[in-house]
């Protein structure tokens, strides 16, 4: 009996140790980080060298090469907001507003408090042709629930886990220690935990289900149905942002901030999802 308990505890301890161990040194175990969808042959170049080279190309105003190298780094599994930010800058300099906005928005998933990123994203949005309305619910969430907008998903998850642990620990202490003030403290922590867990749920939903997209072509027609023969309803230009509602084959149904809906061909849009951008099929900056 005792042996069994000890065994369970040791498994949990091992799990914790593996989870909390330090991150691998950059460039050492990148292959372990690879996602199946992103597995591709990587040139036997050190990531540091690649990164330095990309920065050099950028400074030499060779933005196309810089963008390709940043993409290569991201596809090799180095997932980091700074790389998406640099990629966005390269696309912006190339005049590809849609791809720039898409990269900035992905960088935002990692770096929600980065002011440089915010400034560049705002500027890129100013440069776009279409005047689009933002969703009032999300702007309210961003303004009022600062933890929702100022923390990325991982950070919010860690805050939730800490609060969760604290909550259970307090609940445990409550069994042995019966005190009125202690009860109030427990209720406060419990309320905060509930609020944070709702925020986390919303963030998870937003991350996985409420997919947004960006137009990555100069000018496209949004049609009434998922085919080229359908009536064009309105036009969108490079960098226009929208919500993707449905996928059907090579077409996606989209909705703008003001409620306008229509169908758009997948090849002209970029999805604000980490796994979908940079697309493996796109040859990056050259397209």
């Amino acid at each position, binding site marked *: 009996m005792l042996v069994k308990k000890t065994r369970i505890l040791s498994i949990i301890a091992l799990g914790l140790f593996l989870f909390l161990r330090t*991150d691998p040194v*950059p460039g050492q175990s990148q292959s372990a980080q690879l996602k199946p969808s992103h597995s591709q042959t990587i040139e036997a170049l050190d990531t540091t060298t690649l*990164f330095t080279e990309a920065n050099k190309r950028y400074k030499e105003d060779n933005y196309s090469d810089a963008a390709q190298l940043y993409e290569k780094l991201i596809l090799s599994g180095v997932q*980091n907001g700074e790389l998406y930010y640099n990629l966005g800058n390269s696309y912006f300099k190339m005049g590809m507003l849609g791809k720039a906005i898409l990269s900035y928005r992905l960088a935002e998933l*990692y770096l929600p408090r980065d002011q440089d990123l915010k400034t560049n994203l705002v500027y890129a949005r100013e440069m776009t042709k279409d005047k689009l309305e933002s969703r009032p619910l999300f702007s309210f969430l961003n303004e009022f629930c600062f933890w929702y907008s100022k923390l990325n*998903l991982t950070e919010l998850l860690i805050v939730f886990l800490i609060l969760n642990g604290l909550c259970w620990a307090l609940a445990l202490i409550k069994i042995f220690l019966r005190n009125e003030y202690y009860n109030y403290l427990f209720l406060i922590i419990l309320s905060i935990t509930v609020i944070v867990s709702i925020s986390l749920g919303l963030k998870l939903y937003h991350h996985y289900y409420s997919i947004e997209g960006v137009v990555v072509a100069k000018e496209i027609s949004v049609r009434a149905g998922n085919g080229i023969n359908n009536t064009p309803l309105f036009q969108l230009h490079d960098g226009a942002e929208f919500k993707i509602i449905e996928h059907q084959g090579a077409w996606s149904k989209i909705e703008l901030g003001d409620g306008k809906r229509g169908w758009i061909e997948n090849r002209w849009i970029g999805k604000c999802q980490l796994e979908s951008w940079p697309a493996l099929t796109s040859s990056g900056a050259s397209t």
Partner: protein
Amino acid sequence: MGKGKIFLASVILIIQVENAHALSLTAKVDKTEATLEDQIILTLSIEGTRRAGKPMLPPLPDFDMIPRGSSTRMQIINGTITSGIDYNYLLIPKKTGTFEIGPATIQENGETIASNTITLRIASSGTRPQATQDVFITTTVSSTSPYVNEQIIYTFKLYRGVKIANASLENPSFEGLRVEPLGKEQEYETVMNGRPFVVTEIRQALFPTREGTLEIGPAKLQCEIVMRSRRRGLFDDPFFDDSFFGFSRSEPKVLHSQPITLHVKPLPTEGKTPLFGGLVGNFNITTTLSKRQLSVGDTTTLTFTIKGSGNIRDAASPEFPPSTDFKVYDDKPTLAVQDSGEGFGGTFTIKKALVPLKEGSLKVPSVAFTYFHPELGSYELCKSTPLSIEVLPTSDKEKLNLVEALGTTTSKEEIKILGKDILPINTSLAALRPYRIDPWHWGYLVCFSFPLIGYVGTVLMKKRKERLEEDLGYARSKSALKNFNKKIPLIKKQLKTEGSTEFYRLTSKSLKDFLGDKLNITGSALTPLEVEHQLLTLTILKDKIEETKSILHTLETGQFAFERHSLSEKEKLLKQVKELTRWLDKKIRK
């Protein structure tokens, strides 16, 4: 009999009235010759019945027709009764010429009855010299060829040599002109051709808003000329001339003035400078300062006053040159209009608060603007006189305040945006540190569930501990196997001792103690039958009960009947006992 006569007389009377039906319609006018100034009264009389409908008149496009009510009448002359209705209309001629009025028609029992026609001759009012007329109007303008936005005076004059009543003036439509009234109407007496006239004069300032030919239509005045009644005698006083007393009658008149044509000239382009703000007339500018001597940080009010006659409403603030010597705060400009009979003009006042930033003698910059002088036909420059002020140093305390004020308000400038670009890339190698967003990582799941498991585990342990403390039977049941296992080494020691009953005693006791603990009874005194009885109360396999009973029986036989077993048999027996206890421990739960 008497009643019958009256009835007969009434019938005859009605028949006579109805016989008089010979319905007729007559049109008549008060005069057949008139001028454009006259009003003609048209009366349509229906004779014969009062029940006929209203007569219809053919359209009269050359006259304004105003209905003036109707009157009915009945006459009995020598037994002949006539009745009728008169419809009155006022006809105001619009143009000269000979016109035919009528015939008017009326429908009676499907029959159309027509009236006579009347021929009217309308002559021009100008055929008579004005001085010979009793009442006449004139309109004049000060200039018929003004410049755009130049002021011209439009004067309306009503001359009356007789008394008039109920006068109403209808101004022409001043299309293409901005109108400003000039004071109140004036009344004075004048003599024309030896005849005295009372003149009422109304003046208006007109500003042409566009170049080209503009037409000011004729002004129209409607009035009634009071005519003295011939037969008055006793009340021969002008006071009784009022128609109220019935000693006078009035004749309606409509007076027209001559239309005026204006040839508006555009403003010349020659000499037009950017300083020209649209003012046309005669203007000047004066400058005043509320304080000529003040300390640094104090305020003085600089006032520019643009004064003159012309289109002062179009005045705008002249540009004040930027100065590094002063901080300038603008006030809202004010406009005071003067609409005296002489002409339209006014004063446009611009006030600026000046806060000197330096000490010493400072020059207040002057302002300038140009306006168009229509009489000279050229653009004139109007410049304010430059002023200077003496700025004295402040006391130390005030100086300190000034420095603070300068630091916070006066020396700050709006940031000028020179260009826009994105911020640069990140070159730090920190950009290569992997940072994965994977909320479903098993580590997070462990971290999430660990506190929960810990809590549940602790609660269960606490509950178990409490039960063990409170429930003896439960505590005994839980420790039964543990106690039995503790005795195994002792039994094993006795295994190899040949001919001893100790093995059987210890094993039997241990088993009975185990069963006693499990069933919460005293175990050591249990017999196999009692064990069977106790176990039967529980839902346990019959075979196992038999097995327990058999083992206990074997052990008792060994202990008391000296039946000996070999070592291997004893080991087998012990093994059997161990397995049985393990099985029973699982099956019997309290």
